[in-house]
């Protein structure tokens, strides 16, 4: 990485230094703390560690995957009870009990999130209120299993026949907590985390890079409910006594408070949130009435004055963007050659895309009406027409965002009508959007790298444990992403926030992302809308490059200069019907086209 970049971001550097120092110090403090803290603080900090695990679980759900759920007290409770029952009633070893608790909670999460994939996200929030209520009543009623309302006792910890004392418990919990912190971090810095964040940011664009978002949502919720269950299991043995009263509505609110305080979607948020949410109310221990009101007031005020939470606010101040070490390792500076990167077999059939009788009706309006169109391999094919002619609808049907009412689409010789967009990307189709759809919570280079997610092979375990395979693939992927950034001249902005880029740069970035998917057919939906003269010029140069690399392009554009200059073939539509077709020259002189554009009497 060029040095200039690091200098330009000296604030980031400062942040990362402070951050590292802070982490080191707090880590050291938590290791030596038991030596002088005394039993009470040691136990309360152990409890905070458990809350951290819980908050990390919630963060993966709400912060990363964008699923708000109130059932986390229930997941926590299920984990606690299942592990307790496993240990006490079925005499399982402690560690197996932990796993059983986590797994059971994950399963409950799976069951409630499966239907949620169909439903808007705040519906899961509502389902989860019901779930919370149901779990609590079951804990109360299912006496032979849970001991009912009176609660149940769990024997002290016993690992490999060693009974743990408070010290050992503390360190044990600390280790589990650190494992979860590492898990969260590793997840965030891998394709899995990026995919989840992408879904939260922009569902459609996420689908556009091939993410089956409902599957990922479910997976994300499964993982987070498992962590909540793990926290519960640890809590069960830590506390030694369980009662359904613990896992109530108020506890859910406490989890929310941790998330709100710390900042959803940040790595340090759950940790900071857990610490502060535990300690601040303690200041009001002597005045219980005031404590409750302060608690409520915090919930009302904080999201309004500090929407990003504490760590989000700090991060914003420092404009922290992840330093990805794969970029720093970058040394080679050779000119990147798109051509060499597209070694796809060009000898297949000549027509890459054939559209027949494509029709789309919205209610009573027919937006696209029996459209036929054929795109030849290796050409730039433009689809033009006045505003509202049905171009975007056509493209949306081709790329699987809209379902056609009638007609068929054949891509590379295969019927793809009605396929979902995330399936099409694998088949070699990628697109950009009329209104830029970037992942604003990811850095510029990550935005490109996510385009290359199709070529990753490492599993979620590789990312959790940061295996060599994962590191290798990530490094390769980021190298390539940097190459694409070179093409669009954003090499020196790799670590920026996409929102800090100009409109033109954002469009280019989206293009780079689509390119990195190495498509056979690239669909560009008004790539130059809203760009300045010079930006448009730059864009056209890049489109030339892409064309020369042999990628077929379907282009929708209003800049006729650009269209005429670049297109091999043009289809003109109006009122959803094809009104003209041919090479650029024949289309411009066609009177029908002129009328369509300029109105009667042209």
């Amino acid at each position, binding site marked *: 990485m060029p040095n200039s970049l690091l200098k330009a971001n000296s604030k980031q550097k400062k942040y990362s230094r402070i951050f590292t120092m802070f982490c080191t110090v707090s880590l050291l403090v938590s290791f030596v703390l038991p030596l002088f803290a005394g039993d009470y603080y040691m136990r309360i900090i152990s409890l905070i560690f458990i809350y951290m695990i819980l908050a990390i679980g919630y963060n993966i759900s709400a912060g990363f995957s964008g699923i708000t759920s109130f059932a986390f007290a229930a997941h926590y409770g299920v984990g606690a009870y299942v592990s307790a029952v496993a240990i006490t009633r079925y005499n399982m070893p402690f560690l197996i009990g932990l796993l059983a608790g986590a797994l059971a909670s994950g399963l409950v999460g799976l069951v409630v999130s499966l239907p949620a994939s169909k439903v808007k996200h705040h519906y899961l*929030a509502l389902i989860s209120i019901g779930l919370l209520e*149901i779990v609590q*009543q079951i804990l109360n009623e299912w006496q032979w299993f849970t001991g009912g309302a009176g609660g149940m006792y769990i024997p002290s910890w016993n690992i490999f026949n060693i009974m743990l004392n408070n010290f050992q418990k503390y360190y044990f919990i600390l280790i589990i907590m650190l494992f979860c912190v590492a898990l969260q971090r590793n997840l965030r810095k891998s394709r899995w985390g990026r995919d989840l964040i992408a879904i939260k940011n922009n569902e459609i664009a996420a689908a556009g890079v091939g993410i089956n978002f409902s599957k990922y949502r479910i997976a994300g919720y499964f993982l987070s409910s498992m962590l909540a269950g793990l926290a519960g299991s640890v809590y069960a043995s830590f506390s030694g006594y369980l009662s359904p009263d613990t896992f109530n509505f108020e506890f859910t609110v406490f989890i929310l408070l941790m998330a709100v305080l710390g900042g959803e979607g940040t790595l340090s948020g759950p940790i900071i949130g857990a610490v502060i949410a535990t300690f601040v109310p303690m200041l009001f221990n002597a005045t219980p009435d005031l404590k409750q*009101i302060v608690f409520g007031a915090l919930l009302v005020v904080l*999201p309004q004055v500090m929407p990003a939470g504490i760590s989000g606010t700090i991060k914003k101040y420092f404009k922290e963007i992840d330093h990805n070490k794969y970029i720093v390792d970058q040394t080679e500076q050779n000119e990147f050659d798109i051509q060499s990167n597209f070694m796809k077999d060009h000898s297949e059939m000549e027509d890459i895309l054939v559209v027949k009788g494509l029709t789309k009706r919205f209610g009573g309006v027919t937006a696209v009406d029996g459209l036929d169109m054929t795109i030849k391999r290796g050409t730039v094919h433009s689809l033009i027409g006045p505003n509202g002619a049905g171009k*975007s609808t056509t493209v949306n049907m081709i790329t699987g*965002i809209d379902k056609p009412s009638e007609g068929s689409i054949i891509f590379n010789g295969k019927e793809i009508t009605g396929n979902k967009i995330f399936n099409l990307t694998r088949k070699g189709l990628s697109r950009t959007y009329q209104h830029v759809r970037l992942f604003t919570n990811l850095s510029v280079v990550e935005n490109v790298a996510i385009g290359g997610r199709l070529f990753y092979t490492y599993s979620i375990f590789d990312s959790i444990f940061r295996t060599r395979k994962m590191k290798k693939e990530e490094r390769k992927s980021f190298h390539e992403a940097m190459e694409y950034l070179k093409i669009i001249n954003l090499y020196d902005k790799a670590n920026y926030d996409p929102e800090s880029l100009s409109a033109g740069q954002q469009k280019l970035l989206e293009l780079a992302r689509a390119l990195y998917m190495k498509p056979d057919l690239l669909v560009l939906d008004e790539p130059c809308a809203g760009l300045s003269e010079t930006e448009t010029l730059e864009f056209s140069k890049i489109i030339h490059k892409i064309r020369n690399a042999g990628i077929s392009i379907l282009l929708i554009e209003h800049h006729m200069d650009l269209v005429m200059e670049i297109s091999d073939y043009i289809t003109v539509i109006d009122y959803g019907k094809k009104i003209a077709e041919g090479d650029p020259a024949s289309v411009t002189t066609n009177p029908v086209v002129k009328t369509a554009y300029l109105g009667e009497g042209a």
Partner: protein
Amino acid sequence: MQEIVTALANGSIYALMALAIGIIYSTTQIINFAHGSVIMIGAMTSYWLLSIFHMNYFTAILLAVLINIILSMVIYKVSVEKLGDLTQNSSWIVTLFGAGIILDNTARILFGTEPKAYPFLFDGHVISIFGTKIMIHEMMMILVAVIIGVLYQIVIQKTNFGRAVRAVSFRPDTARIMGIRSNRIVLMCFAISGAVAAISGALIAPITFASYTMTYSVGIKAFAAALIGGLGNTKGAFIGGISLGLIEGIASMIVPGGLKDAISFLIMIIVIIVLPGGILSAKLFTKGELKTEKI
């Protein structure tokens, strides 16, 4: 028969509470999680006015309605208005919860912890129809709920305000072009919702007793009813409320008492999954689909 009357009476109050949730949902697409507390405050203040200041029933409820209107508007101002786009920013979940906690605790401090005997309308007079004893109060519960439902339906369908509410709920920006101040409409909806909550709280309090714990014991049912019937429309609220009343009645005969609510919520979850728009599938589901218009 007795059970059916009770189920209907309770169900119609659940319907009112669901309606109040729907009123806010219709214009803002948010669910008022402080609603339980607002119901409770309605019941507690009217009890206070009735028994401490010895007002007559009508004035007491009227005043409680007024207090609730102001309270609901304050809730909107304090915890919702500044959040901006509520479909994007889901912090309202947290802030409304917070508002609820403050209200609950304030109520406990002000009104005390003991459940209060809230007087029945017409002194709990019972009339006997075909051997079934029906309290006039229960008939009033059903009657008042129906009247409010019909009134709301008329307001929403026939008046300028109602048209504006529907306009804001469908296309807030276009509504603003019409000269409608969307914020003010939302504020009005909060106010109306508060008023309805006060009446529903006052009507059900004689049965559950007035207490600061009503937030959970009664309020939570409003959500179940609203979701079973479908959010944001009057018919849905009534169907949801009455079905919840009946479900509870049937469930308590079949399962152990402690699992009754679990059954209600289970049914709620199944309804949400199978018919995301509630029994009367509302337009909601379309909101979750990919928006095809502007890509």
